[in-house]
């Protein structure tokens, strides 16, 4: 059915382009209903995403492109965006502009208009512009550029219907509307380039910007350097944008130079304490609010166990499966849900709120000095923050770093940041052994993350002087204004988009892992269960690292997902002796202590949880990003080195 109607009505592809952080993804979500990740920082979207929308019988396919500052690509993402615009695949082009910061986005919009005269200018953040007293005369702008100019607010949805109506209208006439007012000498050069290249005069400037050899020769022949040509092109668009800005935009009041909040967030004596305080607060809330629901969930699951067992026993063909399904699969599955879900449901929304505020670029700004000394890029601070949520996401996010060397460093060291899946183990082990109070546990985990940050810096430096030799390169990062997030929407989307997704992935791994570990524990070879053979085999290595064979086995088996390390470990311990089942953290401690855990074991396990090999999802992602087995192997090995080192150090001291 659906296919037929689509055939009858051709799909109109609409590209959404524009500077970074102008709200393209927010608008995309509003248009298509697909929840694209958004954040108040430049470079949030690194992939192309598309989604459909039916409006008045028209089928639209909207394509959300990564933000770019120019049509001259400085990074692979910008190249993707430009190529898509140039290809005729995009039947309509919408340039999204930020109404509160329209001056620069206008210059980009003009350069798009030069190659795509049929482009629409969509002026987003109309709600915020109104609040700030910015008034944009869209009618006048539309007349002077001879193209549709539409104000919208992606957040409130205002103007979106009008935008769809206009996009539905018959295709605008292809006549040239906007002509870049180049100086005569530049026009001659571009004309010559277009003749040599046999291309449209209008797109000749792209070749000049990209430093094409023909453009270089032509420029020389006209007695100009390519550099001068490029600058003149950029300047032409910028000046033209300035004129339009002057005639169409009025501002009631001058913006304050930099908000006082920013001075505190980046202040010499305040910046780092505040960052640590935020981290502590997030962890404290996560730990203290997750505790009760965790207990409730685990009580619920254990009370459901008896009926479940009876059910299995009552159905004759299920009866033999009862132990493996209940002790194995059900046990691990419910542990992961009750231990993972509450902290994730608290951590992710808080993190998303900070991201939407615009706190992340400030962290990167504060940390860049240190990264610069380690010959890496400050934007690595952003990817580390993403890594706190999920390392695989952090690894993909490394695309925002334009220098290939620095990007590789950020990618390799990303797993040094403990992801959300490792928090429960860090929290529970600290809680059981180091303290009994939430505050101290939060302090301890904050300290561990600080260790992670220091190790990331150290490993980045070591990589910079060995495998990835080089000096730090160009660094320029936009710091967006602090913005009040759409509180409830952010929380809801974060729960669905992030927390739920990560949980599902963990569960998909937990079920088969529970099955396998049960089989290993219950199938014997020459009188001893297989699991015992494995743990015995790993015992010397485990002891060497201040842990034991069972812990190491659990780490190895949790390669697919860090979340399952602790439940697997407990199952291994339980299978060795006959112990009661675990209900709370205090019984967790007693199980661990009965299996020979001391403070030293706990510390070493914490260190190893913090820094060991990345999970398989991260490894697959890093292979996708680097397309090299060698670098994937390095990604595997690099976090392991400080982890092992720290374990040995703890063994020496404690």
């Amino acid at each position, binding site marked *: 059915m659906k296919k037929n109607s689509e055939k009858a009505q051709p799909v109109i592809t609409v590209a959404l382009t524009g500077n970074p952080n102008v709200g393209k993804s927010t608008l995309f979500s509003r248009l298509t209903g697909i929840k694209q990740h958004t954040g108040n920082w430049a470079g949030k979207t690194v992939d192309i995403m598309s989604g459909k929308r039916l409006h008045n019988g028209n089928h639209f396919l909207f394509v959300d492109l990564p933000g770019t500052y120019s049509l*001259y690509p400085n990074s692979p993402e910008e190249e993707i965006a430009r190529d898509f615009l140039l290809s005729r695949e995009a039947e309509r082009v919408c340039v999204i502009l930020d109404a509160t910061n329209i001056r620069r986005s206008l210059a980009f919009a003009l350069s798009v208009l030069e190659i795509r005269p049929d482009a629409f200018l969509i002026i987003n953040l109309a709600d915020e512009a109104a609040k700030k007293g910015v008034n944009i005369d869209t009618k006048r702008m539309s007349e002077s550029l001879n193209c549709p100019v539409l104000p919208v607010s992606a957040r409130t949805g205002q103007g979106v219907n009008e935008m769809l109506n206009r996009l539905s209208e018959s295709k605008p006439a292809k006549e040239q509307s906007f002509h870049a007012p180049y100086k005569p000498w530049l026009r001659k050069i571009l004309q010559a380039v277009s003749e040599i290249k046999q291309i449209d005069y209008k797109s000749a400037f792209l070749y000049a910007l990209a430093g094409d050899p023909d453009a270089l020769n032509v420029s020389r022949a006209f007695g100009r350097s390519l550099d001068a040509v490029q600058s003149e092109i950029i300047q032409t668009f910028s000046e033209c944008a300035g004129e339009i800005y002057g005639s169409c935009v009025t501002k009631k009041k001058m913006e304050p*130079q930099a908000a006082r909040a920013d001075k505190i967030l*980046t202040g010499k004596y305040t910046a780092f304490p505040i960052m640590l305080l935020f981290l502590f607060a997030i962890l404290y809330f996560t730990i203290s609010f997750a505790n009760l629901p965790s207990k409730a969930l685990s009580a619920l699951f254990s009370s459901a166990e008896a009926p479940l067992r009876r059910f299995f026993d009552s159905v004759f063909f299920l009866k033999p499966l009862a132990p493996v399904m209940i002790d194995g699969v059900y046990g691990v599955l419910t542990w992961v849900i009750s231990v993972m879900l509450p902290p994730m449901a608290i951590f992710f929304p808080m993190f998303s709120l900070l991201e939407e505020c615009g706190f992340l670029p400030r962290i990167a700004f504060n940390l860049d*000095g240190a990264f*610069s000394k380690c010959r890496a890029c400050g934007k690595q601070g952003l990817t580390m923050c993403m890594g706190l949520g999920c390392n695989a996401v952090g690894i993909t996010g490394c695309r925002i770093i334009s220098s290939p060397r620095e990007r590789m460093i950020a990618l390799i060291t990303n797993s040094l940041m403990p992801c959300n899946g490792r928090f429960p183990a860090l929290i529970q082990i600290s809680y059981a052994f180091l303290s009994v109070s939430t505050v101290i546990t939060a302090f301890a985990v904050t300290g561990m993350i600080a260790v992670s940050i220091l190790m990331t810096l150290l490993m980045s430096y070591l990589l910079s002087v060995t495998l990835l030799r080089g000096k730090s390169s160009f*660094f*320029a990062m936009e710091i967006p204004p602090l913005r009040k997030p759409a509180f409830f929407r952010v929380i809801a989307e974060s729960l669905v988009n992030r927390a739920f997704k990560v949980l599902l992935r963990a569960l998909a791994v937990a079920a088969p892992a529970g099955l396998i570990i049960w089989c290993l524990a219950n199938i014997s070879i020459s009188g001893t269960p297989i699991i015992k053979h494995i743990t015995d085999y790993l015992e010397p290595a485990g002891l060497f690292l201040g842990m034991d064979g069972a812990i190491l086995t659990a780490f190895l088996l949790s390669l697919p997902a860090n979340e399952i390390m602790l439940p697997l470990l407990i199952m291994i311990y339980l299978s060795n002796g006959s112990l009661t089942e675990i209900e709370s953290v205090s019984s967790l401690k007693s199980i661990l202590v009965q299996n020979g855990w001391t403070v030293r074991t706990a510390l070493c396990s914490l260190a190893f949880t913090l820094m060991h090999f990345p999970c398989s999802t991260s490894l697959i992602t890093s292979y996708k990003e680097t397309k090299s087995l060698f670098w994937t192997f390095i990604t595997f090995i690099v976090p392991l080195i400080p982890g092992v080192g720290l374990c040995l150090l703890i063994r020496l001291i404690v």
Partner: protein
Amino acid sequence: MRPMPLTRLSFGQTGIIQWVSGEEDKKSRLMNLGFIPGERISLALISPLGNPRAYRILESTIALRSKDARLIGISIKERT
């Protein structure tokens, strides 16, 4: 007044960009971000370690390391 590197700009001053230099694509990158001769610029933030610094240009705030900020020459606008 003689042009000076952007790194010498201090809080409260307004500069006018005089020139932008830089090898390879650095210059065009800076220009695409809005660092264009003739534009007004001011210092917005200094990071806790002193480097990078963030500048206010074309209504937005952009952080640059001093190494890159030196590629930009400015003159100080006399206050009226």
